[in-house]
C-alpha cells in the first residue's frame, strides 16, 4: 500500500513497538503495593505473578495480545484534535485519546483480554471478576466469550440498578452476574465478594481484577496491559503535533486507564501528569471518592495504598455519580506517583463532571462515560490556564452509553435531590 497524498502524517500503526515488559515488574511501589492477602491466596497469587513475569516477555504472548488489540478491540484507538473543545477552554490545544472507541466501549477491554489470555495460559476454565460501572464486567464477559471461558461477575446491587444495560450485556455474553448486597453495594463490596469467591477455589478459578489495584501482581499486570494507551498516545502525539503533550490527563478510579496513560510518559520529565479523582459532592463533604486528595495510607484488597478511612482505620463509604470511580482506594503506583510529586491528583465534583460531559457532547460529538467526564473537566480547566501553543492530552476512557439513565436522572435533578 502506498500512502495517499492527502492522508495526515500519522504513524503506520501507533501500536507498533508496544511491549508488555517496557516497565519493571514491581511488587512494591515505594512504600505502597505488596501482597496483603490471606494465606489461602498466596499460592494462586504467586502462580499468577510467575505466569505474568513469564508472559510479559514472551513474544508469542505479546503477538497474540497485539493481534487481538488490532483485530478485536480496534486498536490503535485514535488520538484526535478537539478544536471546538479547545476554543471552549480558550487556552492550550486539547487532544483526545479515544478509548471510548475500544470494543465494549472503554479501556477496560485492554486489560480483560490480556488477563483472559493469561488465564487460558494457566489452563483455568473459569474466571471471576468484580465490576462497578459494569464496563469491566462486560469486558471480562466479552474476553471470556471470545476465548471460551466461563465467567462470573460480582456486582454491587446498587451498581446493578444504575448500570442496568451492562448487566444485560454481560448476560447476553453468557456471563453470570452475581449481585452483592453488602455495604454500600458498590464496587468495593463487589471486589470483596469476588475475592471471597476466588478464595473458595483459588486453583480452579482465575480472579480477573478490573483495575490497577489489589495484591501483587495485579497492579503491575493491569498497568502493563493498559500502557498500550499511553504508548499509542505518545507515538500519536509526536506524529500529530510534533511534540509531546505538556500535560497528560486521565480519570482515576482504581487507576487503570490513568496509570496506563501516565506510565509511558513518566520518563519524559517535561510532561506533567494529572489525575482526576471523583469528588462527588466535594471533598469537604463526606460524599466523595477522592482517595489521594482525601485519603490516608492504609491496606485494602491486598495493597498498601491511599485509602478513604476514618480515624479507626475503617474504610469509609464513598460517593460518586460515576460507578467506575466509586472506590475508596486507588492503585498503589498512583499512591507513589502522588507521594513523589511526579503526578498530581485533583478532585472533580459530580456537577463539574456532568457539565463537562455536556460540553464534550455539544462541542465534539462525543458522549463520554461519566468517569471520563471527570478527566474532561480537568483537561478543560488546565487548558484554560495555558497558552495556545501548549498541548493537553486527555484520555476519554469510555463512552457514555452505559450512563444514559444516570444522565437523565441527573438532569431531572433526581440524583441531586437524593443528597
Amino acid at each position, binding site marked *: 500500500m502506498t500512502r495517499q497524498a492527502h492522508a495526515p502524517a500519522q504513524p503506520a500503526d501507533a501500536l507498533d513497538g508496544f511491549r508488555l515488559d517496557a516497565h519493571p515488574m514491581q511488587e512494591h511501589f515505594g512504600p505502597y503495593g*505488596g*501482597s*496483603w*492477602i*490471606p*494465606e*489461602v491466596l*498466596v*499460592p*494462586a497469587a504467586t502462580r499468577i505473578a510467575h505466569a505474568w513475569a513469564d508472559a510479559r516477555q514472551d513474544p508469542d504472548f505479546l503477538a497474540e495480545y497485539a493481534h487481538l488489540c488490532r483485530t478485536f478491540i480496534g486498536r490503535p484507538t485514535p488520538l484526535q484534535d478537539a478544536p471546538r473543545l479547545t476554543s471552549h477552554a480558550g487556552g492550550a490545544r486539547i487532544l483526545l485519546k479515544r478509548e471510548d472507541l475500544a470494543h465494549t466501549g472503554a479501556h477496560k477491554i485492554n486489560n480483560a483480554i490480556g488477563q483472559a489470555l493469561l488465564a487460558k495460559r494457566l489452563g483455568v476454565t473459569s474466571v471471576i471478576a468484580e465490576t462497578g460501572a459494569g464496563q469491566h464486567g462486560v469486558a471480562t464477559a466479552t474476553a471470556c466469550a471470545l476465548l471460551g471461558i466461563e465467567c462470573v461477575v460480582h456486582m454491587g446491587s446498587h451498581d446493578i440498578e444504575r448500570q442496568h444495560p451492562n448487566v444485560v450485556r454481560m448476560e447476553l455474553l453468557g456471563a453470570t452476574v452475581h449481585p452483592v448486597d*453488602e*455495604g454500600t453495594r458498590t464496587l*468495593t463490596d463487589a471486589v*470483596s465478594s469476588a*475475592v*471471597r469467591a476466588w*478464595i*473458595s*477455589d*483459588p*486453583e480452579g478459578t482465575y480472579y480477573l481484577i478490573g483495575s490497577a489495584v489489589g495484591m501483587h501482581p495485579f497492579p503491575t499486570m493491569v498497568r502493563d496491559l493498559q500502557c498500550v494507551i499511553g504508548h499509542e498516545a505518545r507515538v500519536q502525539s509526536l506524529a500529530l503535533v510534533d511534540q509531546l503533550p505538556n500535560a497528560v490527563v486521565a480519570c482515576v478510579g482504581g487507576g487503570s486507564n490513568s496509570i496506563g496513560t501516565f506510565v509511558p510518559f513518566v520518563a519524559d520529565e517535561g510532561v506533567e501528569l494529572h489525575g482526576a479523582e471523583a469528588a462527588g459532592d466535594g471533598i469537604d463533604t463526606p460524599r466523595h471518592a477522592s482517595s489521594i486528595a482525601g485519603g*490516608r*495510607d*492504609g*491496606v*485494602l*484488597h*491486598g495493597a498498601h495504598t491511599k*485509602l478513604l*478511612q476514618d*480515624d*479507626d*482505620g*475503617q*474504610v469509609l463509604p464513598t460517593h460518586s455519580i460515576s460507578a467506575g470511580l466509586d472506590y475508596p482506594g486507588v492503585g498503589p503506583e498512583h499512591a507513589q506517583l502522588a507521594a513523589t510529586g511526579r503526578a498530581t491528583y485533583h478532585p472533580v465534583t459530580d456537577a463539574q463532571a456532568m457539565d463537562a460531559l455536556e460540553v464534550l457532547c455539544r462541542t465534539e460529538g462525543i458522549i463520554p462515560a461519566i468517569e471520563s467526564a471527570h478527566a474532561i473537566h480537568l483537561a478543560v480547566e488546565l487548558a484554560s490556564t495555558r497558552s495556545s501553543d501548549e498541548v493537553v492530552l486527555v484520555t476519554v476512557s469510555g463512552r457514555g452509553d452505559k450512563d444514559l439513565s444516570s444522565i437523565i436522572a441527573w438532569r431531572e435533578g433526581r440524583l441531586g435531590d437524593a443528597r
Partner: protein
Amino acid sequence: MTAATSTTPATGAVRIRAAFDAARAAKRTALVPYVVAGRPGIDACVDLVEQLVAAGADVIELGVPFSDPLADGTVIRNATRRALDDGMTVAGVLDIVRAVRACDVEVPIILMGYVNPLLAYGLEAFCADAASAGVDGLIVPDAQQLVALRSAASANGLGITMLVTPLSSEARIRELATQSTGFLYAVATTGATGARTDVADATLDLLVRARAAAAGVPVAVGFGISTPEHVARLAPHADGVIVGSALVELVEQDAAAAIARVGELAAATRTA
C-alpha cells in the same frame, strides 16, 4: 512452664502455649470459641466471654471488627457490620478485654483482625496497649508478611499466630510455624469463614502435615467447624479447635444458646 506452675500468672505467648499444653495434658483438644468483639453489645460481650470460659473455653478469640473483612463469610461479616454500626473501635475492643480481665478471666485472649485498623492505631502503640489490656496474642490474616507487626508483638510479649491452608506447601508450613508464637492456625478449607456440614479429607491431611512440620508448635484448626461431631472428629488430630461462624450465628440470635453450645462442644474435646 504451664500457667499452673508460675506464681504471677503468665501472659502473652506464654499463656497461650500453657493453655494448649494444659489441654494436651488433660487429653483434650483446646476449645477456642471465636466471638466478634462488641457483639451482642459491649457489656453483653464481656458477660458472654466470661460465660464461654465457664462453659469450657480454653482460649478466647475475639474478632476486631473491620469494615472490609475480605476472608470472612456472611455470618461474621454481618456481625462485624453491626458492631461497627454500634460504634465499636479498636480502642473499644481493648476496653472489652480489660473488662473481661477485671472479671478474673484467666484464659488466653487472642485478637483476630485485619491489618488496616491496627495500622491506623499504630502497630507499636497497638501492641503495647493490647498487652497491657490483657491480650495475649494476635492473628492478622492479611499481614502474615509484616515483620514490623511480629517485632512489635514480640516486643510486648504477644503471641503471633500464622495461618496455613490446605494449599500451603510443607516448606511454607514450616516457615509459618516458625514465625508463630503460641500456636499455628490451620485453615480447614479454602473459602471464606462460615459453617460447613462436614469435615473434609483435605482438612485431616492438612493437620497431619501441619503437625509434622510445626515441630511442636500447637496446631489449632478452624474455619467451618460447627458441631460437637466435627470437634470429636478433629480432636485427635489437632491441639485446638476454633469455632467461629457457627457460634457467632448463635450469639446473634440468642447468647444463652451459644453458651450452651460451647458446653456441648467442650464435652467433645477429648482426644483419647
